[in-house]
């Protein structure tokens, strides 16, 4: 039974099957992403009640929180794909990691910039060196390092394996950085009383937020499908020529 299951898994990961799958799923995923994002944006911008503390400014949450959450989630996807690639040498896992890195880095950048834009009017400062923000910045560096290494190595197998090792080492690093910055910041507690905490939240505000998070997630899956298709096509073309 196990043998049947693992062979099914390998078959699923073959280029032809995954191309067809990506092709078929793409319109559905894209539509779901579109609907969720539309709902999130409209409900969040127009229908969610005004926050008593921050006024209309709190609406930045609908961009900032999904981007931040997804940036870490996508890095976890890269981590898991890297582990799968190193252990089972499934090329699809490598494609997945490679294609996710770009959009993960973009989400991280969006999170950092939207956070800064939110922080200035709300808490009076563009940036603070507390655990959460520093970890997000380090995550951006990890993404950039990953993308840099992948593009610097010309050989395909070496690029895939080296990037996989890098991703695994980076994933171990993220909680350590978070913890050590938190610990480091407590020594300077006097200066950093302002905390960019997520506000405790009303249902009318929560549902659009969940919608946006899911929307960002499905958008990521859409981009992943598109890039997977084009990567597979490119590889087939290179094989033929």
């Amino acid at each position, binding site marked *: 039974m196990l043998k049947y299951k693992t062979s099914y898994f390998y078959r699923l990961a073959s280029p032809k099957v995954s191309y067809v799958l990506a092709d078929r799923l793409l319109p559905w995923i894209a539509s779901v992403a579109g609907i969720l994002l539309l709902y999130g944006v409209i409900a969040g911008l127009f229908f969610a009640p005004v926050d008593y503390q921050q006024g209309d400014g709190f609406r930045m949450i609908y961009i900032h929180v999904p981007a931040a959450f997804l940036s870490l989630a996508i890095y976890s996807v890269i981590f898991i794909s890297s582990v799968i690639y190193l252990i089972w040498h499934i090329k699809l896992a490598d494609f997945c990691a490679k294609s996710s890195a770009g959009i993960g880095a973009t989400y991280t950048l969006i999170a950092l910039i939207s956070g800064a834009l939110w922080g200035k009017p709300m808490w009076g400062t563009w940036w603070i060196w507390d655990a959460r923000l520093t970890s997000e910045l380090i995550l951006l560096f990890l993404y950039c390092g990953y993308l840099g290494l992948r593009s610097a190595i*010309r*050989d*395909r*197998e070496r690029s895939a394996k080296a990037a996989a090792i890098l991703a695994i080492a980076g994933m171990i690093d993220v909680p350590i950085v978070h913890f050590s910055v938190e610990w480091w910041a407590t020594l300077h507690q006097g200066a950093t009383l302002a905390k960019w905490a997520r506000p405790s939240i009303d249902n009318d505000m929560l549902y659009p937020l969940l919608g946006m998070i899911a929307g960002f997630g499905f958008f990521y899956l859409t981009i992943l499908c598109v890039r997977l298709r084009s990567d597979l096509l490119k*590889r087939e073309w*290179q*094989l033929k020529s």
Partner: protein
Amino acid sequence: MFKVSALSLERNDQKIFSNLTFNVEAGTLVRVLGPNGSGKSSLLKVLAGLWTPSSGTLYWRGEPLAANAPLFALERCYLGHQLGLQPALSPLQNLTLWLQVSGVSVTPAKIREALELLGLADLEGPCENLSRGECQRVALAMLWLNPPVCWILDEPLTALDRMGIEVVCEQFEMHLKKGGLIFMATHQVFEIPSPQAFEIQLGEL
């Protein structure tokens, strides 16, 4: 002794060689021939265990290489294009270092003897001051100080002069007589009398 079944290698989506199968016994000289860029060095690297093939299995003394790796590591010696000599160390220091790393203990006297055999006895300075031919001789000296069974050599005779080639061919002959195995990629034509010899011709896919 060394068996290969359905070996194939693919790099960057390019097939380098595919479906290679052979079985060599002790005392065989295997020449790997082919035009430039046909994958001779790649094949030798796969045989040495440096590169993993895309598919196929290698067997050493009847066991698959994956299971037999430590034994194979002790019994094989690979000499690539880059000779693996530290430029800052002298020939004697280099040989001492690499013999220890390969798991062999050899006295300095024996090393000097081997260097003398190759005409390098009076070279004390660092290897970066030696010519490519002299460096090649130092690298080859490791072959007969370290008694491995399987020699995998990538163009071992390119920079040697006629005398050097003669000495080295003698050593090859002795090794084959003792039941050793030699895989060699070379462009040069020379005669080594050996009980068995065969050729692998690459570049015809």
